[in-house]
């Protein structure tokens, strides 16, 4: 019940993105000097600020990063499908119900938030020859947010 509610909220904010596109770009430009100087620091501060409710809906123009928005922002949807979102890639596995899988990484890792985060950062370490590139250049907080979001996809 709760997860369905959260999912529908997420779908709602995914739909809001195109509508808010112009505003999004505008706020981006405003904040760029600061973000540009220390992107990781800014990202960390933003994460700390929103940590208690990471899945909060993105209604205002100061939209906090959700797991889904980070997933889409960094291009994960190019390879992975999550039904009900704009992520429709067919190269990697469908992640629509990844949270309910028993194991990840071809069965070598338990399906925990921690393991998903590790896999996103360095998939090649868990699964040699994997087609997915490493995303360890993303701030740790963002990786964990994406992992939390994926784990919640039951």
């Amino acid at each position: 019940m709760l997860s369905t509610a959260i999912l529908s909220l997420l779908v709602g904010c995914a739909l809001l993105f195109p509508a808010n596109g112009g505003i999004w770009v505008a706020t981006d430009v405003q904040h760029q000097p600061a973000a540009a100087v220390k992107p990781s620091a800014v990202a960390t501060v933003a994460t700390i600020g929103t940590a208690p409710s990471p899945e909060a809906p993105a209604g205002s123009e100061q939209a906090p990063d959700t797991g889904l928005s980070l997933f889409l922002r960094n291009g994960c949807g190019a390879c992975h499908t999550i039904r009900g979102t704009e992520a429709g890639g067919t190269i990697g596995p469908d992640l629509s119900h990844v949270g309910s899988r028993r194991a990840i990484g071809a069965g070598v890792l338990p399906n925990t938030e921690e393991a998903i985060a590790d896999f996103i950062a360095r998939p090649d370490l868990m699964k040699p020859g994997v087609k997915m590139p490493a995303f360890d250049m993303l701030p740790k907080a963002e990786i964990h947010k994406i992992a939390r979001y994926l784990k919640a996809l039951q």
Partner: protein
Amino acid sequence: MPAHQSHPRANSSSAASGKKDGAERVANQPIKVRLKHVLIGTICLPVVILLGAWIGFFNVGASTGHWKVTSLFLDLAMRSAVRTYALTVNAPKTLDRRGLAAAAGHFARGCAICHGAPGELRSPAVLRMLPQPPDLRLTVADWTDAQLFRIIKHGIRFTGMPAWPARDRDDEVWAMVAFLRELPKLDANGFRALSGESTGADREPAAPAELAECTRCHGSDGRGRGDLVPALAGQKQDYLFASLQAFASGDRTSGFMALPVTGIDPAAMAALAKHFAAQPPTSVDRDQIAATTIKNGQQIAQAGIPQRNVPACSSCHNGPGRNPIYPRLDGQHAAYLEEQLKLFRSEGRGGTRYWRIMATAAQRLTDDDIRAVSAYFSSRSESPQ
């Protein structure tokens, strides 16, 4: 020789042959002595030379120049080495002239100080360098394309000629070769026009001083002078800033960019990124490309090539809310995009901290894919707003 052959027998058979053996040794003696002298000489000579260097016997002053014989030897050694090592260089049949403007800009900034440029007098200090840097308008015809490539890429020891600042950027070195072929034909005005010399009149007062170095190649409208120079107008500010930092730190390789970004402080970089990001994007002049090529490119950009694990380009490069360090590609020069994709594919490019994601995707693209997808993005001209 016969005595030598009898040697083993002499040892094993009888005492009578012992006398003969002794006589042989005496006969061999002068040779042994000469060998000893040679040995002593070869051991002592380096010591004597080292001692001479240590007490300061050798004059390193440039005031009198080399001895004639030294100068002839060095010149011979240099020309022969360039000729020989250039044999391994695969020169293209025709030089790519699309990088002329960028190469001219680089020449004005990095090379002209020693080699001079049309319409500019060289400093008397440079003319007294040993050896004197040649006026390339007069000497460039002495060399083949492959030899010029070899000299520009690797430099020349003992002359002050440095190697190209970036490894794996042969494309830039070939652009320099193409420019050097053009150089003897240029007069002062022609050179100034090609190298994008700023007149100072179009300079905005608020713009950072470094801007003149950028507009040399990227143009004051930010559209990029020449197809191999990227258009910066309307590019994402975060991407521009991250790229400038990558050039400065060497994470992105380019000889053309290494020179102007060195020594720029981060505040000026941020100002430059802001300046170009705020310029209105305009579609670049482009060659006539077959509609089918653009259509193939559109297919790859929007849907990828799933059977070859190529993700759709637009999942990262188009659409709202994308990572601000993923660049905008719409309206970019096709030749530039092609070159960059090939550099990503060979892992010779580097870039922002996200570059490996692009390298992974580029390694699954064929030359035809790269041409098509570059043509497609170049043909798009929607503004990012």
